């Protein structure tokens, strides 16, 4: 049966405000899938029927691209004939064409200019409908709602929440004196500029609310940590002490930040409340301690330290106690990021003069290289833990790439200009 979920409408309204308040799309990233997963579910996504006038977004194209990028689906050719949501679908026929799942849908332009987007998801093996939904969508919301449909399909078929409707933040350097902090959809499309500066910007970090970012800006000729509210453009320098202020990381409840400061000597880790009060130094090794990252349960902070000679990953309590070394392979391990379930640590490691993202299973100690590039930086987990976003270099230019956490699927997001770097995957929006 068809059901229109009212909660989604609320989100659509909010999303509409966000999208219409912002600048038009610029510097869109292009997605190239460069690897192939195993055990992919074959899925047929028919062209959606468009009625009442052209739609500004190709809804079924966006859904297909999202599901392809996840690495867990293989697209079955559906030809060029649209199949409306209301059509009777011959699931036996689709099964014989190799599809385990079938998606059909319609995009109808309404008299008030909005679009009624409907889809149905069928299980061709069990011969039954497993999902169906209608979204009333403004033109500006169509892309977001396409991502939401992809999320529902992904979740119905894998049991894991989809991340296609989430957003990413990254830094683009357009020239020697032009830096932008951009926010885009998780597929790199719909990029919007949150901050433009003549000086470098680095280390963006999403607050758990998905609306605020902390980052480092050199706009005052030194590194200072700011908190920036995307919806209003409001900014506040949260750490601006003597020396370097950098590496902001939010606690999972959004109440605290960990930062790296050199105000008292060597770069050390401090915690503070998110309003800037309550500064507390939690490392005092005499060596470099930086890149703090909270575990999702808030009980640990992972960080980089060269206290043992070269940089390695360590773990400690948020109070600074109970420090343990975590990485032992190689002499250069930096940029720790813990998976949302706390089981897997990823970091950049130097091996044979290549800087590559490694994945460490914390229980077994098994380490796996996730990439085949040589200058990787800034790995970041998708909020469902299934994909990783990172920066790397191709032909001397910074690009964003993603990899499945099983290392089987690699995707590259390339923009038309500029050096792209410092990607960080935003949270699920509740």
């Amino acid at each position, binding site marked *: 049966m068809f059901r229109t979920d009212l909660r989604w409408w609320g989100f659509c309204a909010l999303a509409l405000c966000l999208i219409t308040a912002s600048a038009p799309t610029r510097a869109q990233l292009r997605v190239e899938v460069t690897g192939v997963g195993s055990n992919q579910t074959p899925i047929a996504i028919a062209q959606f029927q468009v009625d009442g006038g052209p739609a500004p977004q190709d809804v079924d194209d966006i859904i297909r691209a999202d599901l392809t990028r996840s690495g867990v689906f293989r697209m079955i050719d559906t030809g060029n004939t649209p199949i409306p949501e209301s059509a009777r679908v011959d699931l036996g026929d689709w099964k014989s064409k190799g599809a385990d799942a079938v998606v059909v849908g319609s995009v109808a332009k309404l008299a008030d200019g909005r679009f009624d987007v409907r889809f149905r998801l069928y299980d061709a093996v069990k011969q039954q409908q497993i999902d169906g939904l209608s979204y009333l969508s403004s033109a500006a919301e169509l892309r977001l709602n396409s991502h939401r449909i992809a999320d529902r399909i992904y979740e119905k078929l894998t049991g894991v929440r989809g991340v296609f409707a989430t957003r990413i933040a990254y830094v683009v350097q357009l020239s020697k004196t032009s830096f932008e902090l951009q926010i885009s959809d998780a597929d790199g499309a719909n990029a919007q500029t949150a901050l433009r500066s003549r000086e*470098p910007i680095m280390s963006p970090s999403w607050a758990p609310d998905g609306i605020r970012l902390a980052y480092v800006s050199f706009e005052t000729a030194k590194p200072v940590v700011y908190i920036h509210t995307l919806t209003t453009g409001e900014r506040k320098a949260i750490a601006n002490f003597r020396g370097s202020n950098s590496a902001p990381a939010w606690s999972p409840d959004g109440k605290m930040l960990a930062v790296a400061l*050199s105000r008292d000597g060597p*770069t050390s880790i401090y915690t503070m409340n998110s309003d800037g009060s309550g500064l507390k130094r939690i490392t005092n090794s005499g060596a*470099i301690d930086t890149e703090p990252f909270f575990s999702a349960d808030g009980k640990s902070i992972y960080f980089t330290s060269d206290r043992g000679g070269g940089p390695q990953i360590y773990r400690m309590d948020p109070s600074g106690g109970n420090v343990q070394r975590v990485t032992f392979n190689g002499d*250069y391990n*930096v940029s720790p990021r813990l998976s949302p379930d706390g089981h897997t640590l990823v970091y950049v490691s130097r091996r044979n003069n290549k800087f590559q993202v490694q994945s460490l299973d914390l229980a077994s100690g098994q380490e796996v290289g996730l990439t085949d590039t040589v200058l990787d930086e*800034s790995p970041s987990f998708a909020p469902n833990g299934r994909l990783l976003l990172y920066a790397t*270099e191709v032909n001397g230019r910074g690009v964003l790439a993603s990899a499945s956490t099983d290392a089987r699927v690699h995707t590259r997001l390339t923009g038309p200009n500029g050096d792209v770097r410092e990607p960080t995957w935003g949270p699920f929006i509740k």
Partner: protein
Amino acid sequence: MTHRTQLQSLFIAAAAIAILAGCASTPLDENKAPVAEKSAPPPAPTPPPAPDTRAVQRVDTAPTQIDPLTDPNGTLAKRSVFFDFDRFDVKAEFQPLVEAHGRYLSSMKQRRVVIEGNADERGSREYNLALGQKRADAVKSRLTLLGATDSQIETISYGEERPRATGHDESSWAQNRRADIVYK
């Protein structure tokens, strides 16, 4: 024609004199008449010649202090210290350079410097920021050993954000693993 031109010139000259005569605009004629009468026989006080608009008057500033800092051939002209990968120890070849700046700062307590640490592009930007800071701090501690004071020196880091060389090879990286002594 000629007559007219002369008249014109006269008029312009008069106007010019009026302008050059200065600020007063009203009682000039009344005052001028009696003065002219008193000194009638000698050549009438000729108006000051119109200044040569192409003249160049040389001005010498006060003699400059001899500052070894400005000697392009001196050791102090060298202001960059280079480092090895993931290292922040000042190598022996840069000791004379650092010592020269330390002695200079020690003798010129009013001078201030900012030491800017940098790193090559490889690895983590945050770790490189911290590494650049350590490089700057390493140079600072050398300078203070030689008599420069803490208040003369500020250290900051740009990490890998402001590369001097933008290539992606060892020769570029070597140039970017650097601390610069910047006089303010």
